[in-house]
């Protein structure tokens, strides 16, 4: 599903929709406020007109058999209290004008004694509102029907209406602005779980394939559950391929050992120097293959074990000594000397013994491999601020290679040319370090040849 660029953001769409709703509500509010206020203003005018008509009606009297009237001052002056509108009136007796404006039209809706009627029409160039009231007055014993009409122009009303419209516009506008601002906040807050989910996924390390532990809002539950299912599938698939690699490496390594033994025997039997040379090269190649297979196995093991890290107390000094002892023969072959510096009170460390050993072994193995004949390899364990194991050689170092890329799988230095390797050694060390909350540091030896590879762990 694709959306046009503007509406690709859920927040924008949510905001636009809420803003549109606010706009609609604002218009509705404007109309309601104006409608109510105008009705109220009209009712006020109608009320004053009615009072005026009633006041005139109350002044009706009969004199010498005729109906007469003293127009009360207040009946007309009250109409001038709230505005400057023009005023017209007419009093009719049995259809004949008694007094007032003769041309004021009769009401279309005839009033009764109990009910006044109102009309709006144009008169003398302005729109007027007229109230009509009816009374029966006895004149000389004969009841006469008197119709009182009072009309007033509506310019004051128009002015009020204009003012109210302005206020209603202001109210509507403020409502719209406030509602829009709140929509913005609402849209932001509604999408916060999405953001948190994104952060939770982004935060994870590359090898972290545990299911997401966050409690998502109901709407996101299907998504998170789908994501978790996907992660589980991915993890299973990764494990399967690691298994495959381990299996393959294992299966290759055993026959290789046999082939090597046979090659040794054959080598001893051969007399011609060129044949012996070929055989030696063969043995070396077999060694490398065997080593690579071993590292692949190690790596698969590291991947597997980091998922469920063992936590046992380890004497790091002992572990280092043990590992160095295991690799001493390889160093001897090159006449290289491994010098160990281990504090008297070696610190204890909680971690996975097998993994840590594998890491130290890979680093040391690398150091021996790249060391020139007859050189020293310094292995130093310190526990000052951090637990730190430095393995420093006098080899060729890493040249100009970015030390960070060396930690990636199958990545090797730029200056390895003649030396075979899988590119897995430092990857394994790095993964082990990170699994224990530490880092793998690669530095160039200052002033001397070679490099220093360090495992750094926080002290526990």
């Amino acid at each position, binding site marked *: 599903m694709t959306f046009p660029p503007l509406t690709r953001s859920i927040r924008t769409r949510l905001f636009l929709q809420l803003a549109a709703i606010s706009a609609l509500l604002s218009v509705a509010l404007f109309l309601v406020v104006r409608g109510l206020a105008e009705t109220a203003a009209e009712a006020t005018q109608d009320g004053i007109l009615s009072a005026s008509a009633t006041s005139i009606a109350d002044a009706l009297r009969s004199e010498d058999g005729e109906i007469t009237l003293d127009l*009360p001052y207040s009946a*007309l002056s009250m109409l001038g209290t709230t505005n400057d509108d*023009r005023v017209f009136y007419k009093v009719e007796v049995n259809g004949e004008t008694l007094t007032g404006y003769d041309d004021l039209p009769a009401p279309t809706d005839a009033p009764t004694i109990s009910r006044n009627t109102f009309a709006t029409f144009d008169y003398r160039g302005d729109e007027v509102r007229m109230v009509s009231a009816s009374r029966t007055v006895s004149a000389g014993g004969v009841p006469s029907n008197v119709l009182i009409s009072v009309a007033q122009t509506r310019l004051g009303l128009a002015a009020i209406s204009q003012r109210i419209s302005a206020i209603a516009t202001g109210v509507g506008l403020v409502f719209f602005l406030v509602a829009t601002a709140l929509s913005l906040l609402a849209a932001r807050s509604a999408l916060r779980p999405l953001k948190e989910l994104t952060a939770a996924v982004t935060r994870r390390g590359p090898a972290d394939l545990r299911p997401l532990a966050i409690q998502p809002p109901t709407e996101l539950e299907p998504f998170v559950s789908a994501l978790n299912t996907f992660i589980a599938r991915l993890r299973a698939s990764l494990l399967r391929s690691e298994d495959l690699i381990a299996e393959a490496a294992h299966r290759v390594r055993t026959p290789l050992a046999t082939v090597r033994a046979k090659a040794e025997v054959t080598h001893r039997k051969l007399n011609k120097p060129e044949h012996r040379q070929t055989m030696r090269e063969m043995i070396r190649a077999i060694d490398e293959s065997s080593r690579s297979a071993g590292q692949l196995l190690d790596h698969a093991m590291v991947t597997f074990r980091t998922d469920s890290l063992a936590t046992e107390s380890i004497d790091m000094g002992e572990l280092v000594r043990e590992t160095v002892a295991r690799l001493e023969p390889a160093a001897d072959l090159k006449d290289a000397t491994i010098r160990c510096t281990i504090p008297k009170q070696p610190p204890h460390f909680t971690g996975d013994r097998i993994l840590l050993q594998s890491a130290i072994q890979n680093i040391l193995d690398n150091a021996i491999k790249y060391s020139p004949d007859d050189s020293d390899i310094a292995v130093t364990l310190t526990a000052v601020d951090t637990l730190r194991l430095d393995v420093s050689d006098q080899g060729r170092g890493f040249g100009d290679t970015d030390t960070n890329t060396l930690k990636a799988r199958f990545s090797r230095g730029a200056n390895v040319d003649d030396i075979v390797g899988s590119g897995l050694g430092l990857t394994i060390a790095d993964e082990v370090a990170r699994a224990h909350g530490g880092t793998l540091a690669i530095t160039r030896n200052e002033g001397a040849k070679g490099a220093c590879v360090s495992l750094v762990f926080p002290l526990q």
Partner: protein
Amino acid sequence: MRFACLPAAIIASLTFLNAAAAFEIEERATYAASNPQTELRIISTADRGVFEPILVAFQQKNPTVSIDYVIASTTELMKAVHEEGEVFDLVISSAMDLQTKLANDGFAQTYRSPATDALPDWAKWRDQVFAFTQEPAVLILSEKAFPTDDYPTSRDALIDLLRDQPDRFRGRVGTYDVRISGFGYMMATQDARVSENFWRLLEVMGRLDARLYCCSGAMLQDIRNGDLAIAYNVLGSYAQAQLADGGGYRIVLMSDFANIMLRTAVISSNAENVTDAQIMVDFLASLESRPDLVAASGLPAIDTDALQSNVALRPIRLGPGLLAFLDRLTRRNFLRNWEASITQE
């Protein structure tokens, strides 16, 4: 001072006027401009003697405007504008009720300017009727009849005085004949509206054979020549102006209440020269800023402070209330009551 806008031609003859005019003109004056470009036609109730200083000053400021000044009584003015649709640019009248009716019935134009906005609310209506003077109705006492400081200052006191000493005042009390004077009618109706005392006063005056007058001038004349001791509801501004010429009377502002008439201007709905009419309205509305003209015309300008310092002063309120007393039935009834009270028949 040689100034070209002094009346170049004053025509005080009715025969000159067009024969179609059915309304009665008292006097007509034309003030030609030195450099005439436009003509402002004014119909007014104010005497030329009162209004000329204002017209001359206006022309001094607006030298291109010729003024045609027609004087008519309040009733005739109403007839000309309301019934006959005579074309005038500006209608100036002391009859606030009739001016209100002109505006109410659609014979006035709306006008707003800084000068009219500066007028207090009670001095304008609908932005169509603009007041520019405030003239109280006063009690005039002859100095011969009231030589000491012992004189009535309220309607109650006046009623008591007239009741107690009928012989002293019989035939020597005067007031407006409200049947023929628009100003008199308006003041009487306002009196009646404010206080029932008015009818008592009227009856007392009626018992003393009160003399009825068309106008303030005639009343003041009779006060001066000793025929009258008391004149009720005389136009104060007029009395003040006349005091200088001879005097012989005391002007009393009633302490219970004194109605104040506002002289108003209305731009006619069929005005041909609206611009100059508006300039004139602005000029009149800012009369307060020209004490020289106030002095020369004797017309007190709108002054809110003066009203605040004397709470008895009540400006008659412009607005639809004034229409009530113009109602023909109401007027007929009022006049009948008035006649019954004053003539004692």
